[in-house]
């Protein structure tokens, strides 16, 4: 008889976990996935493509229904889990259903953060997290619409980009002096800003939101410096917060997220957490790749195989509004490091490598990222560059050509 395994959350981490568990130990567990969103698991990364009209909503589905059936996974979606009874090893669902578990995996993801400013609850203020948000934005989008996107991180930029492609007049405001300051240095950030501006997006940096104003619905955004931006729609994309509510209520250790060890286990050995809701070695990752790595590691572990998740080297490797961007490691270039820069404004490309003691410590690639994984390997492996150093900034093929 298979052990009952319940996954709370039906997002990307959950899907990858299930996929891997099927590979590692098909049939060992009777898997049940509970999702609050009323859809099959979908690729959240593609929401901006849906917003941009590049793909249909259905195309974001990670796996078709038949796949889940073949995996033997029972899907319970559109139902919220409301509590965990650790003693009885039971999950309570909205509406009263009780799901016993031998193993419980929390993959509850995160909540969008709403700024604690006046007016955030006005109609016309949306977040950018799920299909409902996208639908709301699309409903309001038009060439006559003035949208203000708050937040110059990846999420806000994607929202701004997607909206801009609908013809909406978009202003992107960001508190910091550069976009994506946690992933990009000022030069790459400036190039990104220029790329957004080339797409018709107005970018305001150092813009501190004081309040959302409007009589009954959004009319403008007031900045701390007194500037007032007219707005028919406001997208709040200032960040995410791990969704650890169930875990906290169940008495599990929670800091910023559900605290897990290298086997992704919580204090309770029957309960694990993966993805954005988990906090591993003090870090809550907000990116898909660590979630996938955690999902894969946990699947191995629950299959009874030795598996350790030692954390992910923070890297960003994706297209931001159509521009490939990669950043990893220590890309700032502290004293004691050596910096190699290669920029081709004509091609819109920029590379910065940070080297410490002949080892690649960090990298930023903007506009052209074909060598990203090679750099990531160099950073992760920490091997001395040696003769690669001469042409390392030009990528693997040329560096190894010599």
């Amino acid at each position, binding site marked *: 008889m298979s052990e009952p395994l319940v996954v709370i959350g039906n997002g990307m981490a959950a899907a990858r976990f299930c996929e891997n568990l099927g590979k590692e130990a098909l049939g060992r567990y009777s898997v049940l996935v509970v999702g609050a969103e009323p859809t099959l698991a979908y690729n959240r*990364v593609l929401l901006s493509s849906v917003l941009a009209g590049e793909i249909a909503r259905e*195309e974001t589905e990670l796996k078709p229904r038949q796949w889940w059936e073949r995996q033997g996974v029972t899907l319970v979606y559109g139902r919220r889990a409301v509590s965990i009874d650790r003693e009885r090893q039971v999950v309570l669902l909205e509406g009263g259903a009780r799901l016993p578990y031998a193993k419980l995996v929390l993959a509850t993801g995160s909540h969008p953060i709403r700024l604690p400013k006046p007016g955030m609850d006005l109609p016309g203020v949306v977040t950018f997290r799920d299909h409902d948000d996208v639908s709301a934005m699309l409903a309001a989008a038009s060439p006559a619409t003035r949208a203000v996107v708050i937040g110059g991180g990846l999420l806000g930029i994607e929202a701004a980009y997607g909206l801009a492609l609908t013809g909406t007049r978009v202003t992107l405001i960001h508190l910091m002096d550069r976009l994506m300051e946690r992933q990009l240095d000022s030069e790459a950030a400036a190039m990104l800003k220029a790329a957004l501006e080339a797409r018709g997006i107005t970018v305001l940096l150092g813009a501190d939101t004081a309040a959302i104003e409007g009589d009954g619905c959004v009319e403008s955004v007031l900045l701390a410096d007194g500037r007032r931006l007219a707005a028919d729609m406001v997208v709040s994309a200032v960040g995410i917060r791990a969704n650890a509510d169930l875990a906290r209520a169940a008495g599990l250790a929670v800091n910023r997220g559900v605290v897990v060890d290298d086997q992704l286990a919580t204090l309770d050995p029957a309960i694990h957490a993966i993805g954005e809701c988990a906090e591993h070695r003090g870090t809550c990752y907000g990116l*898909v790749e660590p979630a996938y790595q955690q999902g894969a590691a946990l699947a191995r572990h629950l299959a009874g195989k030795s598996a350790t998740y030692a954390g992910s080297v923070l890297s960003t490797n994706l297209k931001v509004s159509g521009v490939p961007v990669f950043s990893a490691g220590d890309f700032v270039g502290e004293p004691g490091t050596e910096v*190699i820069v290669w920029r081709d404004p004509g091609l819109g490309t920029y590379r910065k490598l940070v080297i410490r003691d002949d080892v690649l410590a960090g990298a930023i690639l903007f506009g052209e990222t074909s060598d990203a994984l090679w750099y990531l390997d160099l950073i992760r492996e920490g091997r001395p560059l040696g003769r690669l150093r001469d042409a390392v900034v*030009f990528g693997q093929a040329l560096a190894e050509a010599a």
Partner: protein
Amino acid sequence: MTAHSHLPNPVVTACPYCGVGCGVIASVDVGGQVTIAGDPAHPANRGRLCVKGSALGETVSLEGRLLHPMIRSRSGTMERVGWGTALDAVAEAFSRTAREHGPDATAFYLSGQLLTEDYYVANKLMKGFVGTANVDTNSRLCMASSVAGHRRGFGSDTVPGSYDDLDTADLLVLVGSNAAWCHPILWQRMVANKAARGAKIVVVDPRRTATSADADLMLAVQPGMDGALFSGLLVHLAEAGAIDRAYVEAHVDGFEEALERAREIAPTVAATARACGLAENDVRALFDWFRTRDKVVTLYSQGVNQSAQGTDKVSAILNCHLATGRIGRAGMGPFSLTGQPNAMGGREVGGLANMLAAHMGFSASEVDRVRRFWAAPRMAMSEGLKAVPMFDAIEAGAVRALWVMATNPAVSLPKADHVRHALGRLDHFIVSEVVLSNDTVNSGAHILLPAAAWGEKDGTVTNSERRITRQRPFLPLPGEAKPDWWIVAEVAKRMGFAEAFSWDNAAAVFREHAALSAFENRGARDFDIGGLAMVSDAEFDALRPVQWPVRSVRDTADKRFFADGRFFTADGRARMIAIAPPALKAEADESRPFLLNTGRVRDHWHTMTRTGRAPTLGRHIVEPFAEMHPEDAAAAGIAAGDFIRIETDYGEATLRAVLSEGQARGAVFAPIHWSGETAGSARVGALVQPFTDPYSGQPEMKATPASLTRVETRVEGFVLSRGPVALPDGLRWARVAVEGGVGTVLASDQPVDGRPLAEALAGRGGTITEMTDAARGIYRAAVFRDGNLEAVLFLALDGRPSWNWIETQFGLKDLSPAARRALLSGRSPEGIADAGPTVCACFAVGLTTIRDAIAAGACDVEAVGRALKAGTNCGSCRPEIKKLIEAEAKLVPA
């Protein structure tokens, strides 16, 4: 430039470089592109060409060309004027100077690159009409010692033999000649003789060269000791009974005196070896071969000529040939290899200060004869100033008006910095040139006259074997450029000599020159081309290469001199000469412990005004250098590639050190080609001492005492640009033609900030692509304008960046995307698969790679994912992959 229908195409003409005088065939295609091939019918080269000749097509662009007469304005700038104004000014300058300060206050400094017709007109104007023999030439630096040696030995400036002798000799002795580099076509004939007939080749040269590499015997003679070697040889021949007593008795004077002096200098093989710094066995080998092989040709070039005892060295060689009667017969004789295309033509017209005209000197009867022929009002009555004293006289203010034609004395003369300074003192400094800028032009020229260049010129040249060859035009005269003879004739007319200087064309000048050579000659003078004095214009146009003398219309067969023992001295007998004991004019000492030797490199010629335009020729040796023995370098703490400052009593230069065992200890060799136009501190002429040969006036350019110091270098780099670029002060630099533009090598002992340099290269509207690795002092930049590559800059703290691959891209019209990305790496992307723009960022899968996979059968997104992993991580590229699959499906017929 376009092909011009009024010019025949292709055109058979002659190469403008060395004295071998190869025939070339020039073709101009509809796009104006010039193609050069060897002329199979020309006896000198029989269709072959060296690398310099082959690359002539790369040198004919009009970039940097002087296209209009220019006169220095009161404010000091050069301003364009009409020909009338310019010619009036030149005529006035010479007339007034001659009137106020005497004819000897005027001078011409001419060139072995002038055609015979140009030379003739210039010589005639000065020696017959202005009344001064101050007509000298860069040939003074080239073969004046051979002229003096010939005249002393033969009574005439005669090269007795023919190139055919090189094919049939059994022993070829090259003295002071790097023929493999400087006369490559003749060298190939010698090597072929060696291969086919087993001829022995001996090279006598202080340094090992490309020539000695193919020699049977290399005699690394001490500088200046060639005369001792040939003195020892003469003694050996006498003692071994190898003297041709009958020939000597019948035709040669001075044998006993010459032999006696030779015995004082080099009495034995051992003494010869000692004096020359050679192994006895090697000396004996040469002597034995010379004694036992009748067919000996001794070839000599600048190592003999450019010497304060050059005339004696020539005499020491001639002595051995005269004493054995090995002269004027097939496969034997002394053979002067001239360095310039028309050194011989210049000698024929008398374009030297110590010659009058047509191989006549300044005896009263000769002056009178020429006066009558020219109907000349004011004959020069005696020799004029030879090159070195001429420029001394300019510096001293004695010569106040100078006209330089087709040469660059501010680079090529000894103590060239003094020359440059002296030129600035002239009242009237006129330059006939093809380029807008060179060191001579930039020494304060007052009037610039645009002259015809090779490819446009029409006339004749004479090569080292006395063969007259037509230079024919295949390009139109650009701008307002004019033939040199026309320019001089127009000035002469304005000076009041219209009657004597009115020719319709070059053929008319040639006819007069030919007539003068035959005038009252009757066999008394070697140079006689009277048989050509009546050629029609059409016959002149069609004139085939012909060896002089041409004493009658039918006398066009090849011929040699002196087999009959008839010489051109007053008594008809040759002279053997008792030479002065060999010694250098200046020896190395503690403060100047090295002897600076100067010479040429394979792929450049003179001051690079022509070869410096050809990318093909820039690749062999990119920058000026100084070559020295590794042990000398080690002792001075100099490593290969370091920069060294070479100082002499006359000047200094900073050059890249090249180490070679081929250099003798204590010797340093530097090439003469670089100038202020092509390098920051490589004017080697400025280092050279001015001591001259007492007979020939030729300076000793190959043994100037010098000291060396290593110069610190911190930064090295280069710039490739479309044209010459201005560089900040303090940078060491040298410039060379590359595909698509100019390559400039850079070095500095101070840090160089690359960004401002790149910005200067970019100017307005250029975008800079750059790479910095500050920890290594690396800065690299490429400048693009409208997407086109404009310039590349590389700087590095240690090591010398190479532009080899980048140059191949610089010459292309369009840079491939892969090449653009690889550009600043300096490494070729060839063989590196271009994945195309990234589609899947997570797994770095490119567009091209994905298309290939689709074409190979991946029919949906999942299949692409299985094949390439693309789209299997974050999945954000899946829509793009799907579109690619759909697009591909449309291409495949159902």
